[in-house]
């Protein structure tokens, strides 16, 4: 269905090729997963299928890409629109119309499908994706998961033979991600749709894949094979694979179910040991304190009588659905929203009544989109500005950048940095004022496993140095790895607040893979298991 023949691609303004020697064949009705570290050319590979590379991006493509027998060299993206459906990373930049139903119909209108057929397919797709209740809603009012489903639906109505998805679940909470993946499964199994998918969060998708294409490094030829074979060698892999490799299971399990079957002996070996858990440190100074905090946004109550306290040296993970109020809570802690009720103090100050320049030294927030924090033309200028804003010694921020991620070039525009680099820069800017309280909103979105583990190490050392850290995240593995405490928000209420093992083990949606495999023992991460095995072989 999709065939790459000796494809190489180079963007117009770069010397090194983005793709080289790509030979892939994806048969009809397969779910093919593209994996690799960030910046390795996954999006370029996906773009080549829809014809947007090179017709839209420019650049030089050699070799041949054919989709359903059509050569992308001679067919422009709009002429492939009836066989390829593409959903990019950000669903919002995909929408042309403003209501759900019109959006589902837009593609068909462009292709000139008969009105009766359009009507029927819209109804079918509304049902298939569970969007029937939302049909008349303006798209801007939907949650992230709903938008993602509308984006997928809008290309499905055209009945494409091939569906190309770039990180479809990275912005979604675990529940919404399952929904989207269930839909993809159904398309592959019941309708024979071919799905090509790039994703960083392998723990969510790898068990559904029929074929994995691994791009090991930029410009290197891809490694293609069965998921288990690829995962055995892949530099990026989910915890279930890490555990499998550690325990030497063969064949390597990819799903929790397979892993549990193989995990009997490991569970026995670990039976008499307990994970080393530092235990919540109750001695630190109380730095964040919110009592009966209520915040209204427009007519809705985004937070209802929320209580939260965070001590120095503590790391707290905020979890919950898209739109549960996590970001609102973080924004309120830095004074971006004025509470409608209750009290909030951060580092001894009331955030919404404190001047920004003063608050900067008490609390720092890295927003969901780190790019929002960056204004300057170069990394160096950005660091100088941060030192000035924070009234810190010149060179403080640059030294922090070097600490966080060595080797970041000075003269690059922040926009051209990779996701991981950008996050590190934003973090360094916030840390330049050395605030005791550090807040992070979805820090691992778009990060590969290497960047993520670097971030984990970094935040651990910051917590050890006495920072209080609060992070809002959908990433259960990150929360299990890092947090002392987990707070779960639902619809503006706190529904759970307790030590990480207690909270995540009691709820399947928020349990990390290791915990699911080794249940009922309270192991949360592969690192814990590794340590325990090393301590007493």
């Amino acid at each position, binding site marked *: 269905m999709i065939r790459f023949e000796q494809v190489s691609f180079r963007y117009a303004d770069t010397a090194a090729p983005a793709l080289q020697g790509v030979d892939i064949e994806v048969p009809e009705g397969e779910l093919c997963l593209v994996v690799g570290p960030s910046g390795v050319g996954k999006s370029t590979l996906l773009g080549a299928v829809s014809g947007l590379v090179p017709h839209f991006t420019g650049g030089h493509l050699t070799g041949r890409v054919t989709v359903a027998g059509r050569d992308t060299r001679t067919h422009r993206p709009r002429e492939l629109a009836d066989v390829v459906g593409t959903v990019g990373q950000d669903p919002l930049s995909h929408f042309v119309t403003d209501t759900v139903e019109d959006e589902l119909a837009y593609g068909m209108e462009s292709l000139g499908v008969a009105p009766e057929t359009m009507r029927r397919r819209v109804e079918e797709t509304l049902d298939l994706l569970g969007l029937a209740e939302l049909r*008349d809603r303006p798209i801007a009012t939907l949650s992230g998961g709903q938008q993602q489903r509308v984006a997928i639906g809008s290309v499905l109505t055209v009945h494409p033979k091939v569906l190309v998805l770039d990180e479809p679940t990275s912005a979604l909470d675990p529940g919404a991600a399952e929904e989207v993946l269930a839909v993809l499964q159904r398309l592959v199994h019941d309708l024979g749709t071919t799905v090509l998918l790039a994703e960083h969060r392998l723990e969510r998708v790898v068990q559904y894949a029929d074929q994995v294409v691994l791009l090991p490094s930029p410009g290197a030829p891809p490694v293609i094979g069965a998921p288990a074979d690829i995962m055995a060698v892949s530099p990026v892999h989910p915890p279930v694979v890490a555990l499998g490799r550690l325990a030497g299971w063969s064949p390597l399990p990819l799903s929790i179910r397979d892993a549990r079957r193989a995990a009997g002996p490991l569970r026995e070996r670990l039976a008499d040991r307990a994970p080393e858990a530092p235990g919540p440190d109750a001695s630190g100074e109380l730095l964040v304190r919110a009592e009966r905090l209520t915040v209204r946004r427009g007519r809705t109550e985004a937070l209802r009588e929320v209580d939260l306290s965070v001590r120095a040296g503590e790391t707290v993970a905020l979890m919950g659905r898209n739109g549960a109020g996590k970001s609102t809570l973080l924004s309120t802690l830095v004074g971006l929203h004025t509470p409608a009720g209750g009290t909030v103090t951060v580092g001894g100050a009331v955030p919404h009544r404190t001047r920004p*320049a003063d608050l*900067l030294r008490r609390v720092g927030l890295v927003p969901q989109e780190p790019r929002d924090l960056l204004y300057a033309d170069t990394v160096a200028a950005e660091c100088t500005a941060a030192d000035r804003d924070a009234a810190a010694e010149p060179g403080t921020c640059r030294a922090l950048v070097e600490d966080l991620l060595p080797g970041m070039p000075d003269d690059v525009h922040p926009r051209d940095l990779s996701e991981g680099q950008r996050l590190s820069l934003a973090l360094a800017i916030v840390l330049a004022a050395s605030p005791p309280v550090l807040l992070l909103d979805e820090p691992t979105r778009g990060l590969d496993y290497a960047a993520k583990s670097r971030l984990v190490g970094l935040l651990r050392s910051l917590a050890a140095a006495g920072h209080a850290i609060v992070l809002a995240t959908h990433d259960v593995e990150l929360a299990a790895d890092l947090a002392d405490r987990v707070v779960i928000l639902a619809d503006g209420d706190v529904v759970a607040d307790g030590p990480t093992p207690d909270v995540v083990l009691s709820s399947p949606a928020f349990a990390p893979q290791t915990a699911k495999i080794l249940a009922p023992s309270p192991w949360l991460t592969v690192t814990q298991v590794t340590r325990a095995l090393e301590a007493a072989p």
Partner: protein
Amino acid sequence: MTGQDDTQGGAPKGRGELRDKPQRREEGNTTASGTHPGVRGTARATHHGEKVAHQPHMAPGRAAAPEPRGIHGAEPPRTARPGVHVHAGAWWIWALGLATAASRTTNVLLLALLTAVAGYVVAARRTDAPWSRSYGTFLRLGVAVLAIRLLFAVVLGSPIPGTHTLFTLPEVPLPGWAQGVRLGGRVTAESVVFALRDGMKLATLLVCVGAANSLANPARLLKSLPGALYEAGVAVVVAMTFAPHLVADVARLRAARRLRGRDDRGVRALLQVGLPVLEGALERSVALAAAMDARGYGRTANVAPAVRRATAALTVGGLLGICAGTYGLLAAGGSGVGAGYGLPLLLVGLAAAVAGLRLGGRRSPRTRYRPDPWGARAWLVAGSGAAVAAAMIAATAYAPAALDPPAVPLAEPTLPLWPAACVLLGLVPAVAAPRGALR
């Protein structure tokens, strides 16, 4: 997941007719899925069992499955949306009718009545959709126009002769070349009243446009455009939606400024976020353009070269005819030189242009999804606006003094009974149009 499960029962069958080809993997597939039996076999097992490749949609067989929640497909297909939308064009005709009426009068009471009528209908019939909020913006804009008009009348004076001096501003002496312009000086009640009436007229026009904007989704108006213009129309609508995006971006980036310890108020703050906002807007438009291209925007059908040439000739010729005809009517009409050919030329040009557009529509293979029907309700809505306009135009001839009371000498405005009653006709949509569908 529960919502998902609910719909699984019927949906795969509903789409069963989509693919008549066998749904198995191709030969030579190296990655046999059998190596990972784990997930394959679990959740979806039931669907493999009941998968029927050729079952048509909405077949009686659906009844065998438990009836899932929210299956709208079970209803007979509707081609229109009764009870949800009135044709967007009807709302615009209604609003333009009110606006025409407003342009015919300077009676403050009548203008206020028109504003109230438009406001009441909006309050009664608008939805919760984002575009519905534009009414407030237009209302504020109207007030601003009124204030500016009054300010100008006070500061710059007005040619209206008046005897009732309210107060006197210090007059700024201006050089000789600025003759005829005055800064400061005597402010008379007459000039203020005149400016107030003038400003109110403008404000009422704005409020009427705002009412149409908030009652009818501008994008839906597109559905009534001729095929040849549709793509251009989409571009315009996408461009219009950029303004709210920009506002949201500015708010977000100003919040981010606060995070860096800088003040988020003031002109400087706005200027400094300007560049990132524009960059973001540019990036988003490029992403949207890519998405639109990948979704088939701008696909064209093959048409014969002769048809293409005829389209071009008709459109260009028609537009030239319209220009020449309008010129004949307007410029030379009075003297009688151009009046003879003005009207026929205009009509011929119009006909040619329309024919060109229709022929041009052949190049675009587009179809329309559920165009709004022009039904009885649409007639009522559009009719009420047209009636208000017609009544007011008739009234200008019948009672000019009541509609356009002189500013000098000062007099209390009176509400002319019949025109006022006619304006109330504009309230018909508050009853005739269906309630907003969104809560």
